[in-house]
Structures are given as structure tokens and as C-alpha cells.
């Protein structure tokens, strides 16, 4: 009885702090002269409050709580990060930041991190969950990127709103990548381990060389002047929102899929294929499906890349690109989406910080991989996932015990 009273008390404290903080924020926003932004923020914040109340309510089921917690975390990131991004472009929107903002360069890195998260999690789906080592993920990325760029050109010329241009061409890029995944997946998945890795490597090279030799893709000179975010008149700041939400949707798609019966069937193939067949799992079907889904999301990531860059060249999608993505997956932990997200963040940011030592990047990667394989062969997180709900429960338990241990920092998924 006593414990539950304490819990209720804690809930009130959290709600009170949230209320004070949020009303303060609203007050500052009200001072801002842009009403639409104020309203949007008021909307987001009241949504968060409502979610928080539901999430703290005792009757809410555990699963709903976990969804609410994740939604709140995503909104918090938007509420904190977006003003920092937007402030650079239009400082009058968020006067309370007082000049603290991301530069355009930092925003670019934020976009690249999101794109790399999409690439790493999608590769993790085939490598970590399905258990097939894929060395040619850049091939799917290239297909997605070129398709999205070419389709966007047509749609933009047809006068569609920018939102639909982006969504439709991303989907087209993803679907074409998935189709190519199915086409090479059916013969390739008869192979195992090293042989499959070599075949996917060859596939990526074939894609690159085909693009190099076609006319409508611009050949080796590259594709320029298509309807990229910049040409469509989308500011980097607004585009970063598109990228962020696409990333959230892609990761949520993969995580939710992995936790359905289809996802379990795919994971069982990684664990033991013979046993999976002996309990009625159609191995060919689920292998090709897993492979195609990985390619689909990889293609969407490629599409985002195309919109961001505004310039595509076959050499961008070489073997090194595949290795870059694979390094993120391996170091983050094969089979852990959280690991891929963290590693994608670190391995996009770090090379930017160490621009001066650019030539040594691959050497550093090699050394890091060797050290990692000796010290922690399963990767940063192994197959563990970080769950916000579990964390909230742990933190709550710790607070109730009145002990002050190190509280872990929150992430997005």
C-alpha cells in the first residue's frame, strides 16, 4: 500500500515539474511574434502532457505505456533539437534561445546522422536479424537514390506539392530497391555465409557499373540539377524534419516488424535454420522477405541521401560505403537496433570532428574493429535493446529507494 502511495506521489511531482516547465516555455513562446510556431508548440507540448498523464496512469497497459514513452521521447527530441536547427535560419521564431543555435553545417550532420541510422538499421535487419552477411548494402542505397532523384524530377515538374514529391519518390526508391533485393535474393539466399557476402558485394559493384554506363543516370559525371531539397526550395531546416520523421518511421517499422510473428520467424532463421524448418517456418519465404525489407528501407535511406546531396555520382556508392555501414552495424552490435542507432550517430559525427586526420580514418576503423573484436566481439550492445519503459521503471525504482545512482541518459527509440 505504502509503495503505491509513493508512486502516485511521484507521478504528481513529475506532472508538476512538467507543468511548470511547460507553462514557462509557453510563456516565452507567447512572447515570440510568430503565432503559428507558438500554436504548434502549444499543441505538441499539450500532446506530451496528455501522453505523460496516460503513461503515468496506473490502469494503462504496459505496452501502451511503452508506446507513449517512445512517442514522448521523440517529441522531446523535436522540441529541443528543432529550435536549435531553425534558429539559424529565422532567429525571430525562438528568441528565448538567445543566439544559441546549430550552424547549417551542424544541421547537415544531423541530417546525415538520420540517413545513416536508416542505412545501419536496415542493414542490421538482414545481417543481425536474418543472419545473412551482406556486403553490398550501398547497391540498394544507390538504386534508391537514383530512383528517388529521377522520379522526384518528374513529379516536381508535374507540379505536385513538395510533401508528396518527397514521400512518393522515397517510396518508389524503396520499392525498386526491394524488387532488386527479391530478384537477387532468390538465387543468392541458396548460398550461405561467405558465398552470400561475395555475391552481394558483386551485386553492389554491378549496380554501380551499370549506373556508370547509363545515359539517363548521368554516367560517371554524376546526376545534377534534379529536384533535390534545395532545388525544390526546401530549406535545410525544414528538410531536416522530413529526414528525422522518415528515420523514425523506418526504425519503428523495423522494430515493430521484428516483434511480430514474421519477425520472430526471421530471427529463428538466424538462430538455427534446420530447427526453424522443423517447426514449420518457410525458410525461403522468410529469407527473401527479410532481405527485401532490408533493401526497401535501405532504398528509402538512399532516397533521403539523394534529396540531401543534390548531386549523385556512382563512386559515392562504392565498396567503401557498404563497409562504412557495415562497421556501424558490427560495432553497434548485430541484432541490436539501439546499437545501430548509437553507432550510426557516433560514426557520422566522429569523422566530422576528425576532419583534419581524414586520410587516417580507414586505418582508425581497422584498428578499432580489431580492438573491438578482441575486447567485445558481440559489438557495443550485443543483441540487447534499450527500452525506455524498462528504463523509466528502473529509474522509478531507484528514486523510490532514495539512492542516487547514475541515471542513464535517454535516447530516441
Amino acid at each position, binding site marked *: 500500500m505504502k509503495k503505491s502511495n509513493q508512486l502516485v506521489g511521484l507521478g504528481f511531482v513529475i506532472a508538476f515539474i512538467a507543468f511548470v516547465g511547460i507553462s514557462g516555455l509557453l510563456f516565452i513562446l507567447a512572447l515570440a511574434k510568430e503565432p503559428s510556431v507558438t500554436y504548434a508548440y502549444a499543441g505538441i507540448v499539450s500532446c506530451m502532457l496528455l501522453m505523460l498523464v496516460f503513461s503515468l496512469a496506473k490502469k494503462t497497459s504496459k505496452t501502451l505505456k511503452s508506446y507513449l514513452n517512445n512517442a514522448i521521447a521523440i517529441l522531446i527530441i523535436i522540441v529541443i533539437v528543432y529550435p536549435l536547427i531553425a534558429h539559424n535560419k529565422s532567429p525571430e521564431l525562438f528568441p528565448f534561445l538567445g543566439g544559441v543555435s546549430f550552424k547549417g553545417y551542424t544541421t547537415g550532420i544531423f541530417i546525415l546522422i538520420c540517413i545513416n541510422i536508416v542505412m545501419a538499421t536496415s542493414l542490421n535487419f538482414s545481417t543481425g536479424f536474418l543472419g545473412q552477411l551482406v556486403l553490398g548494402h550501398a547497391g540498394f542505397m544507390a538504386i534508391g537514390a537514383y530512383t528517388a532523384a529521377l522520379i522526384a524530377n518528374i513529379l516536381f515538374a508535374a507540379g505536385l506539392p513538395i510533401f508528396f514529391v518527397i514521400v512518393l519518390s522515397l517510396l518508389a526508391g524503396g520499392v525498386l530497391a526491394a524488387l532488386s533485393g527479391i530478384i537477387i535474393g532468390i538465387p543468392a539466399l541458396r548460398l550461405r555465409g561467405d558465398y552470400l557476402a561475395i555475391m552481394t558485394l558483386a551485386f553492389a559493384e554491378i549496380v554501380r557499373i551499370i549506373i556508370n554506363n547509363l545515359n539517363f543516370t548521368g554516367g560517371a559525371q554524376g546526376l545534377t540539377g534534379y529536384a533535390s531539397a534545395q532545388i525544390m526550395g526546401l530549406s535545410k531546416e525544414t528538410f531536416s524534419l522530413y529526414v528525422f520523421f522518415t528515420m523514425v518511421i523506418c526504425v519503428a517499422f523495423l522494430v515493430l516488424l521484428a516483434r511480430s*510473428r514474421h519477425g*520472430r520467424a526471421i530471427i529463428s532463421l538466424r538462430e538455427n535454420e534446420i530447427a526453424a*524448418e*522443423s517447426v514449420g517456418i518457410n525458410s525461403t519465404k522468410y529469407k527473401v522477405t527479410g532481405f527485401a525489407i532490408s533493401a526497401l528501407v535501405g532504398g528509402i535511406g538512399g532516397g533521403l541521401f539523394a534529396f540531401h546531396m543534390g548531386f549523385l555520382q556512382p563512386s559515392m556508392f562504392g565498396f567503401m560505403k557498404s563497409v562504412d555501414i557495415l562497421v556501424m552495424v558490427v560495432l553497434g552490435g548485430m541484432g541490436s537496433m539501439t546499437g545501430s542507432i548509437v553507432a550510426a550517430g557516433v560514426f557520422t559525427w566522429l569523422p566530422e570532428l576528425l576532419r583534419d586526420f581524414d586520410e587516417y580514418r580507414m586505418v582508425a576503423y581497422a584498428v578499432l574493429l580489431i580492438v573491438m573484436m578482441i575486447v567485445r566481439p558481440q559489438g557495443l550492445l550485443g543483441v540487447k535493446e534499450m527500452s525506455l519503459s524498462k528504463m523509466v521503471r528502473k529509474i522509478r525504482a531507484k528514486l523510490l529507494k532514495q539512492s542516487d545512482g547514475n541515471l542513464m541518459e535517454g535516447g530516441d527509440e
Partner: protein
Amino acid sequence: MAILEVKDLTVNFGGLVAVNNFKLNLEKNELVGLIGPNGAGKTTVFNLLTGNHEPTSGEILLDGKSIVKKKPYHIVDMGIGRTFQNIRLFGNLTVLDNIKIAHNGSMDYTFLDGILRLPKYWKEESEANKECLALLSVFDLDGYAYTLASNLPYGQQRKLEIARALATKPKVLLLDEPAAGMNPQETSELMETIQSVKSTFDIAILLIEHDMNLVMGICERIICIDYGKIIAEGLPDEIKKNPEVIKAYLGE
């Protein structure tokens, strides 16, 4: 009518005749033992029955329907479940997930239901959870439901493999050396488990085993094979006294 009927089953691997004119009539709710020296072709018979190998000639009828040349996962759907001589669990997954994967065939929500978490997903997942936990409790494994399968003690892993095979709702269960590596106490527990599985789930069981206490103790009928051929068939007491079986397998 026999639930599993095998007629003149033969398989050649190159020049080697691994199984030669194997015959079997497994009645409903019958427990039959398959014994023989190492390399006699016992596991090959299992692999033929589950579709892992394709027979050179012969016919296998499950409930009157031929299962020859069908894929392993299709045969599972038709009603043959199996365990393996060397344990093959999904080690990095929880005990409950191991069972739920085998339960896959009983659920039919689509990709879309799963990704968008539509009502059908919740309904079927919670039903599956309930059924799988109930199945685990039959084997006293419900306390381990959220343990990783690879962290279970050896005897429990064997039990989990049987439970997983049962989760596919088979009509015939094939057990490949379920008592391998078990101590006498675990073996006697296993005997009780097999007996209770047979009566609770009302299925036919075909069992390969080298532990004669277990085979003689629970099997209603025993088939002994050597070099792929049936050399004796009958009640446990008859098999014990059969001179050919003694010569080829049991020893003086």
C-alpha cells in the same frame, strides 16, 4: 487405420543403401521404439519422414496423404513434429519465444496487422502467449519463460525441444535420442514426461533411443534395424530375446 504408414522406403546415398525397404505402421496413440547400432540408419529414417531427405523409392502416408517430396515446413503443417539428436534450440531467444516461433503456424495475422498493431495482432498474440505458457507449464518450464534458451540446464533444454515440437500441434512426434547425455534420474523423469505427453496430447510417438531401460520401459512395440534393414519387430520382451538383435546390437 494407421496414422503414419511407411511402405518400402528406400534411400541411396551414392552407392550406399542407407535405408532399405523400411516399413512401419504407426497407430494412433501408439509409442514405438526404433533401435539399432550406430550408423544403422535410424536418424536417416527420421530425416526421410520429415522431408529433410528425399527417398529413392517408397511411400510415406500421413493420415492417408502422401508426404513424399514435400518441403520440411509443409510436412510440419501436415502434422509431423520432431526433436534432434544434438539439441537445436533458438539459443539467444527466450524460452517463450522458442515456443511462439513453433506456434507460428497457428497464427495468421498479416504483415500489415503486425506492423500497424491492428486488433488482430493483439488478439492472436495474447492467445498465443496464453497457449504457449500453458504448454510450458505441462513441462514445468513456465518458471523459465523469460530465460534465454541457451541458459537452461541440459535436461530442461531437452524438455523444451519436445515442448517446441508439440507447439506445432503434431499428430506424430518423432523423438531422436531424447535421453542422450542424461543421468539415470533425469532419464526416469523423461520417461514420465513422454508417457504423459502421449496421453495428454493424444499423439503417436516414434522414438530413437540407446538407453534400453527407457526403450524397454515405455515402448509398446520396438523395431530394430541394422544396415538400413529391419531385422526384428515386436514387443519389448520378444526383442530382448531375439537372437539377431542380440547379435547385432544388444550383445551377449
